[in-house]
């Protein structure tokens, strides 16, 4: 019998991540929109300096659904089933990562669209520094931080018995998930306006390198046995 091509399942994973993590996604988006609106209307330079630093933190919180899909699927034997039917563990991993990226894109995209539209509608300028910070820090930090969180969370979960809490990516999120964006925020604010850009670029570079290292070790850190539910 000829093998039918394996479906990617990415679309289903994304849809499930949105359903399972809808509460966190809504909270992250609403808070992000609120901050975006407030800072857009605030006189001075806080829109350009503060808004890009907050965006990755809130974006990462919005990715909880993707992490939940990973934790629950492993605990409930869904991965075991998929592997038995020929789905490679690598595809499972990249699907969860794809779902996390999609959720980040929704939070960041919506927030940016609303904030920028508001400023244009009010006739306020969009500073060059803001555009540079969004492109050079917010977006790479959002996606890099999300990749780092997702990869570290999946590896961490796969090392332990399936359960909720600290052994799940969700449990790691308060510590590791918001850590890249949070540290970037603290360091950039501490550095002051003159050095903020350097700190931001440095923080983004470190996070992206760490994420790439973890992603490159995927097959070594997460063999198929680690995706199985307890026997």
């Amino acid at each position, binding site marked *: 019998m000829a093998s039918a091509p394996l479906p990617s399942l990415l679309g289903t994973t994304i849809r*499930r991540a949105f359903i399972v993590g809808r509460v966190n996604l809504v909270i992250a988006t609403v808070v992000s929109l609120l901050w975006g609106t407030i800072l857009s209307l605030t006189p001075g330079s806080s829109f350009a300096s503060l808004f890009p630093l907050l965006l990755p933190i809130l974006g990462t919180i919005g990715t909880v659904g993707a992490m939940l*899909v990973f934790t629950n699927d492993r605990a409930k034997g*869904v991965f*075991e089933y998929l592997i038995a039917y020929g789905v490679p563990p690598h595809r499972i991993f990249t699907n969860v990562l794809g779902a996390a990226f999609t959720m980040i894109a929704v939070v960041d995209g919506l927030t940016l669209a609303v904030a920028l539209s508001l400023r244009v509608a009010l006739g306020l300028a969009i500073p060059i520094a803001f555009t540079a910070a969004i492109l050079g820090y917010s977006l790479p930090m959002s996606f890099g931080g999300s990749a780092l969180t997702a990869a570290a969370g999946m590896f961490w979960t796969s090392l332990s018995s399936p359960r909720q809490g600290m052994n799940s990516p969700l449990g790691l999120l308060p510590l590791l998930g918001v850590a890249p964006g949070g540290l970037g925020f603290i360091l950039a604010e501490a550095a002051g306006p003159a050095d903020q850009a350097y700190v931001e670029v440095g923080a983004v570079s470190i996070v992206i390198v760490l994420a790439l290292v973890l992603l490159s070790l995927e097959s070594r850190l997460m063999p198929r046995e680690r995706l199985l539910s307890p026997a």
Partner: protein
Amino acid sequence: MRTAPLASSPAPVRSGGTPRISCRGVSSGYLGKRVLEEISFDIEEPAVYVVLGPNGAGKTTLFRTLAGILRPYRGEVLIGGETVDLQGSRDHLHYLSHMDGIPDGLNVREALRFYARVQGAGAEDVERVLSLLDIGSMADRYLSQLSAGQRKRVSIARVFLREREIYLLDEPTANLDPKLSREIRELILNLSREKVVLYSSHNLFEAREIGRYVIAIKAGRLALFDRIENLRGEHFVIGVRVLDPGTPPALADFARQGDYYLRELPGPEAVPALLHELDAQGVRIREVREMNNPLEDLFA
């Protein structure tokens, strides 16, 4: 097919044709830790092969290895004469884990469509199994809204989406009520007329009722591969435990052993008729088990 006698290191069971499943000196486990040691057997004949063994003996590991989820450290598994690999095994076998394996965030129909896509089945197959397993009425309900029995029914429905030569069913009736267990056993029995079904269970009555062969695993080794009829004792006695306090009139002439009402029958095939008769007389049955089942020795 010939069968191997009880032995600490049984020889492979072989027959003339190409075996549907062939385990050749398979050692397997998790992250380098061996759970199965030198397992060898061949399976050719369509039938239910009941896999028995104490907790931790390696039953689930055997299923996972046969399904290609775990790669053997030594030896090889051949399905239809070909080495098992991740892509290939899915065309030959169905695997039902002891976990539900039902994804969150989907309703029953969507979950079955998800499985259907993985198996290369179509939407019409989903509708067919919804009817076959009598779960059409819950098709639009989310899985989180289902009882454990309903979830199990949905889980089992997956293996009927497409026909396969081999069915690996890891405790398919665990935690099910007697009525649903019976329905599932009947489905599996029908299936086994043309297919190879490996079926693990802790229920020895169930094992004797539907199994033709027994594969016993003890401490990771194959302890027995034989026809179940070769293990049967001279007397087949079942014990019935009821829900209601006091002795129901229909059981008045049954012998008693603790909470069980005993009845000797010609064989396991007579059990469904007796249960039907008791049900018709209003007896609410909590549990049915075979008393002094010779398979119990395999758990010792």
